[in-house]
C-alpha cells in the first residue's frame, strides 16, 4: 500500500498522452462556488476596459487583516514587509523588485491595475490568480494602500520635524 492504484495530486498517469494525471478544467465550465457574479470584481476593469480607481468590494477590518496576512505570505518575500521592494529575494537574489512607494510610478497605479498585476503578473513577476482567491487579492490591494498611507504619513511627520 506504499504506492496505491489511484491518482493523487501531481502524480503521473500512463493513461493520458501527456503523462499527467492532473487534467485541465474544460474551457467554459463553472465550478460550484466559483461563479463570477461581477466581472469588474474578477478583472479589476470596468465595462470599458479601464482600470478601476477604487476597490469594488467592501473592505472591513477582518479583510484588511487577512490582506496583511496574505501579503506577508505571498508578497513580502520580494517586496518586503513595508513594500520597499527590498525583500529577501531582491536583496540576495538580485531580482529587480518594485517599491510601492515609488511616487513616479507604482504609487499612482489605480486599484484595478494593482489587482490586475497580482492576478496576471508583470515582467518577472508571475501571476497569482491561482494561489490567491479573488477576494484575497482585493484584500492585498487594500493592505498595500494602507502601507502607502503609513509611509506617506511617516514621511510627512519626519519632514515636519
Amino acid at each position: 500500500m506504499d504506492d496505491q492504484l489511484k491518482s493523487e495530486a501531481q502524480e503521473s498517469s500512463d493513461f493520458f498522452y501527456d503523462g499527467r494525471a492532473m487534467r485541465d478544467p474544460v474551457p467554459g465550465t463553472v465550478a460550484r462556488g466559483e461563479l463570477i457574479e461581477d466581472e469588474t470584481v474578477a478583472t479589476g476593469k470596468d465595462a470599458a476596459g479601464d482600470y478601476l480607481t477604487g476597490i469594488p468590494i467592501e473592505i472591513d477590518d477582518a479583510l484588511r487583516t487577512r490582506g496583511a496576512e496574505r501579503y506577508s505570505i505571498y508578497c513580502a518575500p520580494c517586496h518586503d514587509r513595508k513594500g520597499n521592494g527590498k525583500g529577501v529575494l531582491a536583496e540576495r537574489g538580485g531580482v529587480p523588485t518594485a517599491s510601492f512607494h515609488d511616487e513616479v510610478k507604482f504609487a499612482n497605479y489605480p486599484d484595478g491595475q494593482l489587482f490586475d498585476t497580482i492576478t496576471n503578473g508583470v515582467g518577472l513577476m508571475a501571476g497569482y490568480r491561482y494561489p490567491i482567491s479573488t477576494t484575497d487579492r482585493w484584500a492585498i490591494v487594500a493592505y498595500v494602500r494602507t502601507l502607502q498611507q503609513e509611509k506617506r504619513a511617516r514621511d510627512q511627520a519626519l519632514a515636519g520635524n
Partner: protein
Amino acid sequence: MSGKRKQWRSLEGLADDPRAAEFMQREFPEGASEAPEGIDRRSMITLLGASLSLAGFAGCRRPVEEIVPYVTAPEHVIPGVPRHYATTMPFGLDAYGLVVESHEGRPTKIEGNDLHPSTKGSSNAWVQASILDLYDPDRAQHVTHGGEKRSWDDFVAAWTALDETHRADGGARLAVLTAPHNSPTLSRLSQAFASRFPAARTVAWAPLADENVLAGVRQATGESLVPALHVDRAKVILALDSDFLHTDSQNITSARGFADGRRLVDGNDSMNRLYVAEGVHSLTGGNADHRVRVRSSRIPALVAALASELRAQGLSLDGAGGHVDGVDAGWLHAVAGDLMQHRGHGLIVAGPRQPAEVHAAVLALNAALGNVGTTVEYRPLTDAAPSDSERLATLAADLEAGSIDTLVIVGGNPAYDAPAELDLAARIAQADTVIRLGCDLDETSALAQWQIPGTHYLEAWGDARAADGTASVIQPLILPLYGGKSEVELLNLLASGADAPGHDAVRETWNLALGRSEFDKRWNKVLHDGLLAESAQQAAQVSLGSGARDALGKLSAGAAQAQEMELVFTTGSPYDGRFANNGWLQELPDAMTKMTWDNAAMLSPADAATLGVANGDEVRVSHGGAEIALPAWIVPGQADGVVAVALGYGRETGRIAGGTGANAYALRSGSAAGFVAGVAIEATGAARTVAQTQDHHGMEDRPLVRNSSLEDYRQHPEFAKHMVEHPPGKAMWEEHSYDSGNQWGMSIDLNACTGCGACVIACQSENNIPVVGPDQVHRGREMHWLRIDRYFEGEPEDAQVLVQPVPCMHCENAPCEQVCPVAATVHDEEGLNAMVYNRCIGTRYCSNNCPYKVRRFNFYNFTKDTPESVQLAHNPDVTVRSRGVMEKCTYCTQRIQAAKITAKLEERPLRDGEIRTACQQACPARAITFGDILDDNSEVARRKAEPRDYGLLEELYTKPRTTYMAKLRNPHPDLADDSHADPADH
C-alpha cells in the same frame, strides 16, 4: 405484534437447511479461507519459495514516482483540494441534476444537486454507478469503418458525400434511430434535420420508456402529458404492479416523498398508508402496509373492480365497473374506503408494464377522487422525443423492404433490446450504410460500417429537461477520454452539414432562451447552478375525454381469468442493459433476491414445488419459438402463476456484461412488453451456482429489525427499547467516557429506508471498494462496507419484507478491538473505530468477533488488475487496500477530516450537517443522519432521543454509535394483522 414474529433471510434459513446454517456458524464457508483453489499446501509452499526468490529481483527497488505538475496552473485549482461541478445525467425523458466531485480535473464521485427538483440532493444506485461507465476500458475508442481505424475527419468527408446524395430526394432513403430524449438542443437540431431532409424518418425508441403511461394519458386526455407524482402529499397510496419507489421513473423524488410521509420525528405521529397489488415481489411491495398478490394480467380487472367499489361508496364516475377474482372483497372495500376518505390526498399509481387502458382508467379514478392537481400533476412534454414502438416497427419493415439506404443509430442498443419479432439486428444489416454513435462496442456496433465513439455525459456539452420540464445543462467534467463525439455534435453535423463543437451548438440553443444581452452572465449562472431557475412547466389542466370511460369499459371486458403461466419482465441492476458492463451494479445484491451477477426465473414457492425445482436449479423458459435457460429462484410473496425475469442481462459484449445472465429480450415482443401469458417453463435437470448474499453475514435469530404498527407506537412509543429485555450491561474494563470534543454517531430510520441500495454504491464509489466477481461473492467474500439486509416475516407464500442497512456500528466497547493481536483496529478520541491498514497482519480475529459482521477481508489483491482507466475513478483521499488487510466502514473519515480543515481555515466551529457521509448524501429517503451526538441540537442527537431509537444487539453492551429507529407499518384497522393472510391469487 408483528415485531415478535420470526424474521428470516432465506427459505433455506427458514427450513434450517445446513447450507444456510453453515453461513451462520462460520465466518466464511468451508474452504473460503483456504489457499487458492487447486493448489495444495505443498505446492503452495513451493510457489511461495519461487515467488520470494523472484521478488528478490523485482522488489528490491521502490517504483519510481514522478511529480507531474501543471505547466500552466489553472485558476482555482489547488492540487489535492477537490472542486464540484453541477451537471445533469439524462435518463430517457427525465434528467437527474447532479453535483460531481472533481479531483484535479478528474471526476471521482457523483452526488445529487440540492437545487435540482429531480434529485433534491440525493441519487439512486444507477446515478451513483454511472461514473464507472465513464472510465470503462471497454468503451469504443476509435472511429472505425468496416473495422478499420479512421478519423473523425474521414467520417465527416464520408457524410458530406452521403449528405449530398440524400438531399437529392429529401432524405427519403435516410433514417435516424435515437434513444428517447428530452433536450432543447437535440430537439432544435432534430427540427433542423427535418427541414434539411423533409422525407427522412426519425425514430426514438428504448425498451423501458413509459410508452404505456404516456399512451394512457393521451387516451384519457387527448394530450401528450407526462405525470409527475407528489407522493409526499398523499395520505393513501395504491400501487398497482408499480415499483415507484425503486425502478420506475422519478424514483428518487417518489422515494423522498414516500419517506417524508412516514417520517415520525419531532412529534409527528401520522403516516401515509401504502397498498400494493402486484404479481412480482417488488421493493415497493416490500414497503407496503398491505400487499395483495395479483398477477400482472389481472390488474386491469382489479382496476375495474375498484371502480365499481368506489362507485358503490358514492363516487360519481363514468364508465363501466367490474369484478376481479382472487382479491379479497374486504381488501378492496378497505382500499376504496380509504381513498374515498382521503379524497385529494390519495394516489393511485400503475406500473409502466401495465397497458395504456389501465393508465387511462387510473387517471380517471385519480381525477374523480380529486387527486389530480395535488398528488399527481400532468405537464406538457416540450422538446421531447418519446419512445415510439409503432414507428420502430415501421422502420423495421422499411429496412426489410430495402427502402432505407442509410441508417444512423445514435445511442441505445436496438440490436440487443428491440422487440424480438422485429428481428432488428437482421433488419439493420440490410441497410447499405449503418452509422452508429455509441459509447460502448455493443451488439449494435457490430452491425455498423461506421462506428463513432460516443461521449459519456460527464465529458460533453449538452442539455436536458427533467420530467417537470426544468431546463438543465450538461456540463463536462473532463475532455472526452477517447476522443468521442457527443449526440449533439453528430446531430449538428447531420442537421447542418457543418462540423462544429458541441459547446457552440448548446450555447446557440440557450441563446434563444436566455437572450443575447448579458447572455454570458446568465449562462454562467445556469452552469453554476446546473439548471435554469423556474423553468419547470406549469401543470396542465386535465380534462377527461371519452377515452377514459372507454378504457374502463375495456378493462372490465378483459377480466377473464387466465390459468396459464405468465412471464413478467422486471427491471434489475443493469436497467435496460445499459449498465450491464458496470461491475458495481452487477455486484450490487438485488434488493429482493439478493442475487448478484445474474438474473433468474423468479417463481412463487408453490410454482417451484410444482415444477420440482429448488433455488439454483436450471429452468428453460420458452415462448413464441424462443427460449432462455436460467436458474430458478424462489421469491417468497410472489404470486402463483408468475415467472419473473429481469431484463438487461445476457449481453454478448463487454468483459463484465458478456455472458452474465440470460437475455430476456429474446422472449419480449412489442405488443406484450410488460408481461406475456402462455409461457412454458420446465426444469432442465442442471444446477447452477448462483452468487447471492442473502445468508451472508447473518446475526442469528434475534429481533434485529424491530418493528410494530403505528397504533402500537402511539400506545407504547418506546416499544423498540422494550422488545429485548436484558440485565444492565457492564464492561470488563474501565470504560472511556467520550464526553468531550466531537463524538460521531449515526442514526438510520428504518421507517424511511426503502432498501434501494443507493447507499451501497455511493459507499463503493467513495471508498474505493473493489469488485470481486461472482465466484468470490459465492464464497462470501463480497467487499461492500455497507450492506442491506433483507428479512422476511410470516409465511413464505405471502411474506412481508423488512430491510436494514448495516454499516459498521462503531461500538464504544468494540469487540473487534479486544481481539486484535497487533492493535490494528483501535478507537480514536472521537469515537471512531479506526482501522490501521499498515498494522493489519490479516488474522481476521476481529471479523470473527464482530457480532454485526461488518468487517471485510481482502483475500486477494482485488485491485491489482484494475485497468489504468478505472484507477482514475478511485478517490485519492481513500486508501486502496491491498491483499491480507481487513477493512470496514470508516464513517467516511476523509470527509470528517476535510470538513474539519475547512472549518479551521475559516476559523469557525464545525456546523451540524456539514459532514455528510457518502451513504447519507446518496439516500433518496433521507433515512441516514450523521453528526455529533454530544451536540444536543444536532439532528443526529435529536433522532437518537426519539423513542423509537434502538441499538442493534445492544444487549451485548457493545454501545454502538450507529443506532436505528424502529420500523412501523400503518395497517388499515379493518385489515389489521391478518392482511398477509388474504386469499392468495388462486
